[in-house]
């Protein structure tokens, strides 16, 4: 049985989807404790208010407000079940498609709301 040091080797690492697309960092780990049973690692969380809650719960309110005012209005963090983790190394490789999660919600919102309105956003050189 492999031993994993969760905080050292999983938390804060870069998450990559099955096409090696960057999809945020592991901002939180969720463990479920069934009544009378053993704790069980269920999922990774990323984005939204999750990293800010690590600094202080008081930050959650303002962050939520800002996201509601400007952002993609999808406040749920990215939730990846532990079963989708395929490889742990310097990065966390996941068997998911970033496009099918909310990981790129901000990226798409910024692209639509700001970048696409500026001339010359497509193509380089």
């Amino acid at each position, binding site marked *: 049985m492999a031993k994993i040091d969760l905080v050292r080797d999983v*938390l*804060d*690492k*870069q*998450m990559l989807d099955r096409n090696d*697309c*960057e*999809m*945020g*960092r592991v*901002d939180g780990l969720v463990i479920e404790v069934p009544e009378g049973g053993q704790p069980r690692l269920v999922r990774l969380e*990323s984005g939204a208010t999750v*990293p800010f809650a*690590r*600094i202080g719960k008081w930050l959650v309110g303002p962050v939520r407000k800002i996201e509601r005012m400007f952002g993609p209005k999808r406040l749920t963090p990215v939730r990846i079940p532990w079963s989708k983790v395929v490889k742990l190394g*310097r990065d966390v490789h996941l068997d998911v498609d970033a496009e099918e999660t909310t990981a790129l919600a*901000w*990226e*798409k919102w*910024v*692209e639509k709301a*700001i*970048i*696409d309105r*500026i001339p*010359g*956003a*497509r*193509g*380089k*050189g």
Partner: protein
Amino acid sequence: MKKYLQVALGIITSIGGFLEIGSVTTSAQAGAKFGFQLLWPIALGTLCLIFLVEMSGRLAAVSKHTIVAAMRDRFGFRFYAIVLVLMVLVTYLVLAAEIGGIALSLQMSTGLGFPWWAIPVVLIVWLLLWKGTFEVIENGSSLLGLMTVAFAVAAWRLHPNWSAVASGLIPTRPDSHAASYWFIAVSILGASISPYLMYFYSSGAVEDEWDASYLGINRFIAAFGMLFGGLLAGAVLVVAAMVLKPRGIEVDTFQQVALMQSVPLPNWGFELFVGGMAVACLGAALEISLAISYLFSQGLGWNWSENGAPDKEARFSVVYTILLPLASIPLLLGIDPVKITILSMALTAAVLPAAIAPFLVVMNDKEFVGEHTNGIISNTVVVIIMLMSFVLAVVSIPLQYFGS
């Protein structure tokens, strides 16, 4: 063959990238006020930068990760958040200073005041980032930045007493004006050891897909590029010491630095200075804007690349797109870029431990760099110079701004 070309370009980049408004202003101030006596911070800063740049490239080549990514990996979100806030605040001021440097150069060549140039300059910097690729930015601005070699020619032509110059390499205490002596020393250290340069360099190495076969080249570029850059900063100091100090002129405007060049180089010194500074500050402004975009993207796990079109790297591109207009505000308000420069360089020295300490930890971690961990010399040199800069900064900044 391609690699040799890269070495050449890398060295040119470093020469062109080293000198900008920070190094030029602080070196000129030092020379004008203290003669050759403050050459030692340039030497120490350059030595420290050589080690740091080499480490940045080594980390990228071996681990395929940048400094920022490795810092978040090992030190977590909370520490990253502190570094992010500190670096964004300080680097924002440095960026304003560089844009100010371009604006001042334009003011000197046209006579139209620098606040008028703030917005056009920001637009040009932004456009180059928006449409240019990493290579265009790296190579274009640095080739033109070679104009700053004029400082070396100027220093040579003045025939300084080389043994007097060499004695400035040894740290000594000043006879008078102690507060300003140490403050200028700190500003020089901050101007030489630029964290943004490390972020930029390591991200560039990842963008160029370096691997372990680049380690030798990396060492070469870091050593020679930074050495030449440091020599140019030293040349500025020598020229100031020989032209301005005897006349009792202290540097508080960019104009004085430009005019000092026309003593050893009467025909084209002024023009070369104006052109060279405009390009050098442009190069620095590009590197700083990208460094901040890298800092956000890599720490938060976004997709990032300066080679991708803005619509493919939306969050990465939006960071510099928001940052650049903000950096024009101090200039629009008419705040003197030279004042911003001096403050921002000293503050850079004060935040060095936050940027460098986690980096050093990672560079000693086999999980990141395998067998290529730091040696005892690089660890010791960087720790000593970093701590010295920090202590000097914490003591001398309050003295300079709030002291009698």
